[in-house]
């Protein structure tokens, strides 16, 4: 548990006058579930965007498994074993849920086979299996543009998991999921990730979820990490409660 998988050092990124990252230093330990909390606009998504190659930091460095990945393309970073899901689900809207996930499964082999079907037994079975674990079997053949928000979110995560990453970054995995199902969903997700020995970083607004599933919590505030530690300690810190959780509860 003490081996560093991802190390961010001195990350800075400004959009005009807005400092979305203002000196981020963070090490993610192999095998841990690290939660990121913080108010809207604190720079949580920006951190994920920088780590996955979508945004290039103005300064600082990110290394993964000991190698520098700063400035690499999203494609190169995925190939190294980092996958992500999105705050706004990014699905292929005219494809079914099963096709979406199967395409992610197929992309591990490259997608260059032009004459055998996407839904061949190998890919389809793996996609079906994942959908079953996410409780999405019932909507496997529904087109993605016809899903409700919770299902979209889960399908989006299933696609990221289908890439078999060693590090998975999830941007608000439970937003849009009905409150009554939330804990079950996270429970399932945590099991899938633990089984596959995936390290996870997830942005989360629900403190119950954080308390129950995170090994550590990082508190984001105006592009900086204001606090970092086990949920028990961090969430009971009065300053964090006032600045972050107070705001969260009203957000």
């Amino acid at each position, binding site marked *: 548990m003490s081996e560093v998988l991802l190390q961010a050092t001195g990350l800075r990124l400004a959009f005009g006058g807005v400092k979305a990252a203002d000196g981020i230093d963070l090490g993610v330990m192999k095998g841990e579930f690290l939660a990121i909390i913080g108010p809207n606009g604190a720079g949580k998504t920006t951190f994920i965007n920088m780590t*996955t190659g*979508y945004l290039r930091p103005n300064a600082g460095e990110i290394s993964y498994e000991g190698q520098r990945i700063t400035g690499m*393309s*999203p*494609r190169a970073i*995925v*190939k190294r074993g980092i*996958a*992500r899901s999105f705050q706004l689900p*990014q*699905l*292929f*809207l*005219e*494809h079914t849920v099963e*096709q979406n996930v199967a*395409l*992610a499964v*197929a*992309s*591990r*082999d*490259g*997608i*260059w*086979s*032009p*004459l*055998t*079907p*996407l*839904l061949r037994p190998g*890919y389809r079975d793996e996609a079906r299996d994942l959908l079953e674990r996410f409780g999405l079997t019932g909507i496997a053949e529904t087109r993605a543009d016809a899903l409700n928000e919770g299902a979209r979110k889960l399908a989006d995560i299933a*696609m990221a998991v289908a*890439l078999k990453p060693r590090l998975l970054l999830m941007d608000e995995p439970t937003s849009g999921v009905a409150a009554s199902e939330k804990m079950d969903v996270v429970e399932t997700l945590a099991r899938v990730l633990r089984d596959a020995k995936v390290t996870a970083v997830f942005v989360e607004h629900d403190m119950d979820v954080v308390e129950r599933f995170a090994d550590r919590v990082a508190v984001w505030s105006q592009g900086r990490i204001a606090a970092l530690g086990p949920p028990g300690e961090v969430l009971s810190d009065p300053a964090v409660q006032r600045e972050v959780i107070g705001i969260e509860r009203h957000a």
Partner: protein
Amino acid sequence: MRKIEPLLAILLAGAMIAAAIAAPWLRFVLTIALAKGIAVMGILLLLRAGQVSFGHALYIAFGAYTVAFLAPRFGDAMILLPLAAVGAGALGLVIGLFVTRYRQIFFGMLNLAMSMVFYSLLEKLYAITKGSDGIRVEIMPVAGQALDRITYEWTIFGIALGLAFVLGLLLRLYLASPMGEALAGIKTRETRLEFMGVPARGVLLSAYVMSAVLGGIGGALIAMTSRHVTPLLAYWTSSGELVFIAILGGAGGVLGPFLGAAGYELVRVYAAASFADAWQMILGAVLLLVILFAPGGLWGMAARAIGGRGR
């Protein structure tokens, strides 16, 4: 629906053969329709990615002029067809490297620009291309056999039909493959492909090259059938015609381009014969009706009549 598709293809082929036997002039019209159908499959490919090329007549013209230029030297259809296909593919690769950086209207207009450059070259380089007079293509041997005119026409018709079948089948397999589905993914969520490690531009480029090859084959067949090539083949209206046929036929299945091309050529011939001054108007009205009432095109209508989905 997918199961019925091959059956429909066989029925359509049978109907075409019957029509070609019944009326020799229909043989000519239907050979052209098959050739255009093959080229329009290339438009359909790009439509899958949500992209419309307004310049694909470039590849038809390239294939046609390849035949016209090289017929005196390699005078055999079985050599000229692959040459036209490979040549158009190579040109498609060069142009594709550039145009696949762009999407939507920019993609469409850049293709248009390329085709108009090619058109001007065909027009202006009179010493090589004979300008707007064009070049005549003589009846050529097929696989070493010298043929009389009727046998030659039947043979080209047969080759066009055979190619339509084989290429249609390959395209159908491709569209359902990981590569084809990733191509369709470009239409709705291109960035997600990158986050799955898939080079979206590479996927589009490979489809673009395939579409150029299909255009080149269609153009070669047109040259062998009409036996006269002119720069008009590359003119923007010819590119528009391909998009027109794609919409008329419907982009939901590989039969669409052939239904569209057959429908288009027949309407054009009949309308031109009966209303010499107004046939464009009739085509326009047909397109309008299709867009308004049958957005899935002729293929979508056929699919619905049989009771499936047009996609």
